[in-house]
């Protein structure tokens, strides 16, 4: 019970202090709208397949929404030493990290709903396998958040967190099949796509919305679960080394 109170307090504080601030909410709306608009302008008036774009825009919204905030907020709290308060709480590092990442995961899941709502006004989404969409979004949010956590543990300055995040995020936009099919990538860099969790999450969303992906869904679920567990374990190990050293 005590652990649950502490967990909820950290989650609620982060949501209130960071994630539900107007700049972040506007980011969650502006980002997918801008990308959709960019593709609309690129189509030069030709009919645009919104449904084909939707999985990529959703995956990217979750990726940027989760990693942008978590890495920065943890680095910010470490810098101002308020993070020490959390490390001194009698809850253990695993629970603390889960509490800190839950806000980002929740924010990522909410972000993913924005493109769906926008798309629902433009196309018919009745054939969508929603039972796949929700867990896929959750897994993308978790793996992206834990990537943000991995970054937060590895740096000590806020600007380093932002730079390091972009080092991972922008290549993922092009390497994970969000807007450029995996088959169109040069064979030399294609293996990189398969070591990035977003590739699997995006492919699951394509199965859910379009009924067609390039990977076996079972493989994608397993890979996403493995990436999520691995990134969390690595982050905890690095946190113990660098924060309680």
């Amino acid at each position, binding site marked *: 019970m*005590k652990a649950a*109170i*502490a967990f909820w*307090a950290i989650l609620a504080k982060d949501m209130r*202090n960071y994630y539900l601030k107007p700049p972040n909410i506007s980011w969650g709306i502006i980002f997918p709208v801008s990308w959709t608009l960019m593709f609309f302008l690129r189509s030069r008036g030709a009919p645009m397949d919104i449904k084909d774009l939707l999985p990529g825009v959703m995956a990217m919204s979750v990726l940027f929404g989760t990693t942008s905030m978590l890495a920065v907020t943890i680095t910010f709290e470490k810098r101002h030493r308020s993070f*020490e*308060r959390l490390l001194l709480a*009698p809850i253990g590092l695993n629970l603390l990290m889960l509490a800190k990442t839950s806000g980002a995961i929740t924010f990522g899941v909410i972000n993913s709903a924005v493109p769906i709502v926008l798309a629902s006004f433009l196309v018919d989404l009745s054939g969508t396998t929603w039972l796949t969409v929700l867990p896929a979004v959750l897994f993308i949010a978790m793996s992206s958040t834990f990537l943000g956590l991995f970054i937060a543990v590895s740096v000590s300055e806020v600007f380093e967190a932002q730079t390091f995040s972009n080092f991972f995020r922008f290549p993922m936009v092009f390497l994970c099949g969000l807007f450029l099919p995996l088959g169109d990538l040069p064979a030399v860099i294609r293996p990189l796509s398969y070591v990035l969790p977003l590739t699997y999450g995006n492919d699951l969303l394509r199965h859910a919305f379009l009924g067609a992906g390039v990977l076996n869904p079972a493989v994608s679920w397993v890979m996403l679960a493995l990436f999520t567990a691995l990134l969390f374990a690595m982050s905890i190990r690095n946190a113990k080394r660098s924060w309680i050293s």
Partner: protein
Amino acid sequence: MTSAVLDVRDLTKHYGDVVAVDGVSFRVGAGEIFGFLGPNGAGKTTTINALTGLVDPTGGEISVLGLAYPGHISEAQGHIGVVPDESNLYGEMDGFGNLCFCAALYGLPRRVREPRARELLDRFDLAEVGRRPFAAYSRGMKRKLTIAAALIHRPQILFLDEPTTGIDVASARQIRRLLGDLNADGVTIFLTTHYIEEAERLCHRIAFIVAGRIVRIDTKESLLAEADGSSSLLLALDGNLEEGARLLGESFPDIAIARNPEGNLLLTAADELELLPLLQRLNEGGVKVYEARIARPSLEDVFVRVTGIEAREMKAAEGRGRG
């Protein structure tokens, strides 16, 4: 000493080649105020961080309230309060919100934490600014709220790292008074400071730490007794210090005479100084005395003597080791 609530044996912490804490051992009894006194960089903060779970020691054993580290560290953290050397609450949250959040970190339910937060705001004279963001507090107010936050879960041991550094005199005095009151309520206090006067006023026992090693550990009374063998007298004269010193020097050759930084004569003797003959001699020589005051031996005298000697010895030993 009563039963030990804090037992540290051979605590060592290395950062690469740098030895921050070097085989430190001590025990703190229940209800004690234990002072850790040393210059900057002596290893005070590293020690306190190791005791509170923020630093993983390289070697040694730590037991808090009978709970051995690292196995029972989380359990022990539930019984300790920590005031770091910087006031590190959340700037965007108000005082009341910060206290409630800290209480929740220790698992206190809402019905308990809100009255407790109000009680502490009252006790620390912060009730009027309880709804003001922490970032808008003065340094003294920030310090007080940080101490209040460390007490929110009624810890048995309170660790304070330089609690009055960088704040105004009035706030520092209030904090010292509050710490005394807390100790009277039964809270064991572990205090690091480089203010000798603060340690002398507050602490029951004091450890001197230099270059990561404890060079002396004793009760305040025992440490002060070391300086009690001699007696000192401060004389404020009419300005003719040289003439006063000459008269006294000629008549009382066993008394050491010096000028102190405030411009008074400081007389020191191995035996007890008798005031009347001194005043008579000065009066005969036409030197007026405005004030005569017995100079109490201070902890500072002991600290300088002990740490100075030890620091030089350690430096020599280090040099020999390298050679």
